[in-house]
């Protein structure tokens, strides 16, 4: 008997993540240098790990309140105010979730009626589209362009708006391009969102990792607080991916709706992780800054070296991804990633898995030691030289 006939259509129609395929291939090989990881290479700060151990010693092993420990919600509220100048009331406007992933899921499920459209600039985080679909909505992708550093243009968003549009999902700094929207960019986008009476979901998981300009939180802009669901978490800035801890902040009616779903589907986020997160917010600033300084230096090194090796790449303003073009190899992004892995044992992720605008580019994470980056670059340069000799289309950097 074929048990797959029991599956729901929405799951059957869902395509498996393009990242999965590369994971399987890379994991089957030995000695791979991976630039394919979307997480920090730092282990969570010791003081945070220590706080978790202490909470276990103290026997904090029970459920917390559905919305999360009130101390943690208060600390998150203070943190958002201190860093990004947005005011959320801890009791009713902050929700502690199982990663930013769950916060995204809750936000979408709380707002989508069947057939509602959500505008998503791509290339983007692989989960956005599938989460919209699972919530019964329709993802409407808006392409972006390498010429302007993959920044989402307000005009493009406006063009994509229909009667069915419910929300716009913004992510800055972005996975996979690392591009960051300035305050001005966000202001222009917010004008359109307000004009068309839409909701914004702002994925700010990389907010702590912005290198060249100050991060602006969408909800801090005029008139945006009441129509924004802010999503963030501890995974990236605090190097806490495995702890599965994130949060959402939004006006009470929106947040309370998310809480309803959360309390039936998840009950609460892991209690020990919440205790760890408390320590991260109270005493973690220095560690966050130290990691950020390190990423910035590696970014500078990596991007300049990529350009020298013949992979044109703009300097990304945030996150820990570089998104170089592989055009001069004459290969598609998927061919490039596959051949680079097989021939040089360097894992990168083809840009096409993040959306059609990602074609011709690959995502490289520079959250790796300098020695690893150096070796990866050496291998990528060797790969490029071979393609060049074999007659692939080649231009100098000046032509780019």
């Amino acid at each position, binding site marked *: 008997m074929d048990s797959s006939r029991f599956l729901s259509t929405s799951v059957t129609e869902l395509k498996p993540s393009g990242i999965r395929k590369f*994971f399987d291939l890379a994991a089957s090989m030995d000695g791979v240098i991976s630039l*394919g*990881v979307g997480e920090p*290479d730092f282990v969570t700060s010791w003081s945070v790990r220590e706080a978790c151990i202490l909470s276990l010693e103290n026997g904090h092993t029970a459920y917390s309140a559905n919305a999360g420990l009130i101390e943690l919600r208060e600390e998150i509220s203070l943190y958002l105010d201190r860093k990004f100048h947005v005011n959320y009331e801890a009791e009713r406007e902050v929700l502690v979730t199982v990663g930013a992933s769950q916060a995204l899921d809750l936000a979408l499920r709380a707002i989508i009626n069947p057939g509602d459209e959500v505008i998503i600039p791509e290339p983007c985080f692989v*989960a956005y589209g599938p989460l919209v679909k699972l919530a019964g909505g329709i993802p409407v992708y808006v392409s972006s362009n390498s010429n302007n550093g993959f920044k989402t243009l307000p005009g493009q968003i406006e063009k994509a708006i229909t009667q069915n549009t419910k929300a716009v999902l913004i992510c800055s700094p972005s996975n996979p391009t690392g591009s960051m929207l300035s305050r001005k960019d966000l202001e222009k986008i917010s004008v359109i969102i307000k004009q068309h009476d839409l909701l914004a979901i702002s994925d700010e998981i990389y907010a702590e990792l912005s290198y060249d300009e100050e991060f602006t939180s969408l909800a801090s802009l005029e008139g945006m607080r009441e129509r924004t669901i802010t999503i963030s978490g501890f995974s990236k800035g605090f190097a806490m991916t495995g702890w599965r801890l994130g949060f959402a902040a939004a006006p009470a009616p929106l947040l309370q709706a998310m809480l309803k779903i959360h309390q039936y589907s998840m009950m609460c986020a892991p209690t020990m992780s919440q205790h760890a997160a408390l320590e991260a917010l109270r005493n973690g600033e220095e560690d966050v800054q130290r990691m950020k300084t390190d990423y910035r230096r*590696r970014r*500078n090194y990596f991007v*300049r070296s990529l350009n020298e090796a013949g992979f044109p790449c703009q300097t990304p303003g945030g996150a820990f991804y570089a998104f170089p073009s592989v055009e001069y190899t004459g290969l598609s992004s998927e061919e490039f990633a596959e051949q680079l892995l097989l021939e040089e044992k360097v894992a990168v992720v083809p840009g096409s898995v993040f959306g059609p605008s990602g074609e011709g580019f690959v995502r490289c994470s520079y959250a*790796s030691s300098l020695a690893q980056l150096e070796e990866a670059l050496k291998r990528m340069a060797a790969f490029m030289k071979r393609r060049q000799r074999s007659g692939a289309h080649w231009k100098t950097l000046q032509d780019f």
Partner: protein
Amino acid sequence: MKLNEKETEVLEILEENSRLPIASISKMAGITSEEAEQIIHKLEQEKVIIDYAATIDWRKVEGHEGVTAMIDVKVAPKRGVGFDEIAERVYRFKEVQSVYLMSGAYDLSVVIEGRSMSEVARFVSEKLSTLDSVLSTTTHFILKKYKHDGRIFETGEEDKRMVVTP
């Protein structure tokens, strides 16, 4: 001496790894190789950069298993020169790795490295204790180094991440 942002950046990068080639340092700091060389040269001249040293775990090298001792020294300060004169007489010995003036129960903290316990003991009893102003010494031998100058010896922390993640 007041340093600008780029100079501080170069110093921090060097402190992390003084063996990085100029090409890498300049890329990390976002400056040209010439700029990086100029900055380093200037900071060497100004003795902001004092030396380039390696942190070595000598226990791993056969025939080099030395011992380190920390010695608490009580001294009688001298009129006019305070502790400086006696400190200088102590730090000039080649066996002495570092000398600090301390607050609290004793005055100077002296770190000595020697090939064996008896060599250190001899240094303390023959050279250090016999100095005029030294009143008493208490010697503590270091049994094992876990962390030194901010570097952890043998972390064994490897990359535990999956090869590809979203």
